[in-house]
């Protein structure tokens, strides 16, 4: 009898434990996914100085993210209007610059890197809404001729070609590398920053995506800035244009005459 009571108690204890554990587990399951790995984003270097020997830079973009999320890293400049000359066939034979086409509200610089193919990470709507990928840019950009009328959509393809040639538009899917280590889940992407990109402040944004939707985002900035002689000359060319012009002429004249004189002395025979 005692044995039976003991067993019953043990069983009750056990079932209490189970139900308590179940409650705890249920509670855990109902809690949102722990925000242990908030999305972060940082870049080194944060300042890129343009010196006389500047030939682009190496950017390293790193941060933490939840391990299951796909990531998209973009580097962009502020949207602006770009006017470009376009060529067309004239008289059926010759290619000539015919006029100007304006690409409105589109960034000068657009670079995108991701952990996977964009089409697998996000739905079309999400891509369009967040300006991710060339197709989203195409849908967003307004193309107008010099009269302000909408121009043929084919010019966007030419615009892409032009920008890619300049190395300021670039998409590389699968370039973002993840690591799972003691520091948690980190990601990294190394970017060769093109020297063709003008001085300015650029924005890096990292977007986390799950089930085709954007779930988190984080951003940071970096600045590309002229320093030293480069800064001095570009400032002078605009602020003291007259003096700059005279300096350019005088130095050229002097260099030409000096070399002329040196050659005369050195040459001797003629």
């Amino acid at each position, binding site marked *: 009898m005692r044995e039976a009571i003991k067993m019953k108690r043990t069983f009750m204890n056990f079932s209490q434990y189970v139900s308590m554990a179940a409650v705890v587990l249920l509670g855990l399951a109902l809690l949102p996914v722990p925000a242990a790995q908030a999305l972060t984003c940082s870049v080194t270097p944060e300042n890129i100085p343009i010196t006389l020997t500047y*030939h682009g830079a190496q950017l390293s973009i790193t941060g933490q993210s939840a391990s299951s999320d796909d990531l998209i890293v973009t580097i962009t400049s502020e949207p602006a209007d770009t006017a470009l000359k376009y060529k067309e066939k004239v008289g059926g034979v*010759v290619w000539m610059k*015919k006029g100007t086409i304006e690409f409105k509200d589109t960034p000068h610089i657009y670079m995108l890197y991701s952990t996977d193919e964009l089409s697998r990470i996000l739905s079309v709507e999400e891509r369009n809404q967040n300006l991710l990928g060339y197709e989203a840019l195409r849908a967003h950009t307004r193309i107008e001729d010099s009269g302000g009328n909408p121009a043929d959509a084919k010019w966007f393809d030419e615009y892409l070609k032009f920008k890619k040639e300049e190395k300021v538009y670039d998409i590389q899917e699968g370039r973002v590398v993840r690591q799972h280590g003691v520091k948690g889940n980190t990601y990294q992407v190394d970017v060769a920053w093109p020297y063709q990109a003008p001085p300015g402040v650029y924005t890096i944004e990292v977007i986390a995506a799950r089930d085709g939707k954007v779930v988190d985002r984080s951003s940071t900035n970096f600045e590309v800035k002229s320093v030293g002689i480069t800064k001095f000359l*570009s400032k002078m*060319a605009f602020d003291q244009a007259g003096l*700059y*012009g005279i300096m350019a002429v005088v130095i050229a004249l002097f*260099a030409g005459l000096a070399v*002329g004189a040196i050659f*005369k002395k050195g040459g001797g025979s003629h």
Partner: protein
Amino acid sequence: MYLPIALTSVNYLVVMGLGLGVGLLSGLFGVGGGFLMTPLLMMIGIPPTIAAATDANQIVAASASGTFSHWRLGNVDFKMGFYLLIGGFVGGAGGVQVIKILRATGGADFMIKMTYVIMLGLVGSFMFVESLHAMRKTKKAAATTDQPSSPKKKKGGFFAALPMQVYFEKSGVTHSALVPLVLGTFVGVLAAIMGVGGGFLMVPVMIYMLRMPMHVVVGTSLFQILFTCIEVTYLQAYSNHTVDFMLALLLLVGSVFGAQIGTVLGKKLHGEQLKILLSIIVLAVTVKIVLELVMEPSILLSYAGGH
């Protein structure tokens, strides 16, 4: 090397090499070389407006260097140069107005490009045929006498009948002062319309219409180009901010030496040989422009400016 105005980075050895090559042509033929340099700079990624303006700055150095050496060799006809220069300034200013009118009527670019190609083609072929002819003649003549390579013919009756006849000692020719003035204006107008310095037009004009000896033509042309490019450099820097001083510096390091080598080389060549070489270059440029016009460009968009 980073260029502060062009906002791009270039290999300085390539740029200095370009300067050397074009400077050599400048010293040899008395042309500024803008018609070669501007497209070459655009090929290495310099925006067209900056390429054209900076090239003018570089030509200041190359033509100063070239003029100096030609002056020491006694090859600069200052008197003729001044008359042409005055004409060139007037023509240049007039040409800018002509462009404005043409642009307003529309379709001007087509006309300009066509004029350019036709002028280049005509000048090139004419010089080529003429100097080939003259070279054959001098070969025959050389057997008997030691004649100068460019035979001076009598001027036509019309030129001689004009008032204000002036003797140009250096060139050994007599012309009415009106002739270089008018020709200078004519070249100035064309140069302004076509957006080039006009050296390749001025040189043939001096050879065939003013009947100046080839060596004096080169020195005098450089003298005239020097002043034109000083004016262009200053105006471009002042109003358009398109002169990249670092780029000009790299180019001129090459071109001043190139101009010296060109001058020395030019002394060793006969006038006819110089003419035929120049005509070949002019023809090659013509062919290149024609091909560019006819073939579909790989990219249909570009920044504004340039030719």
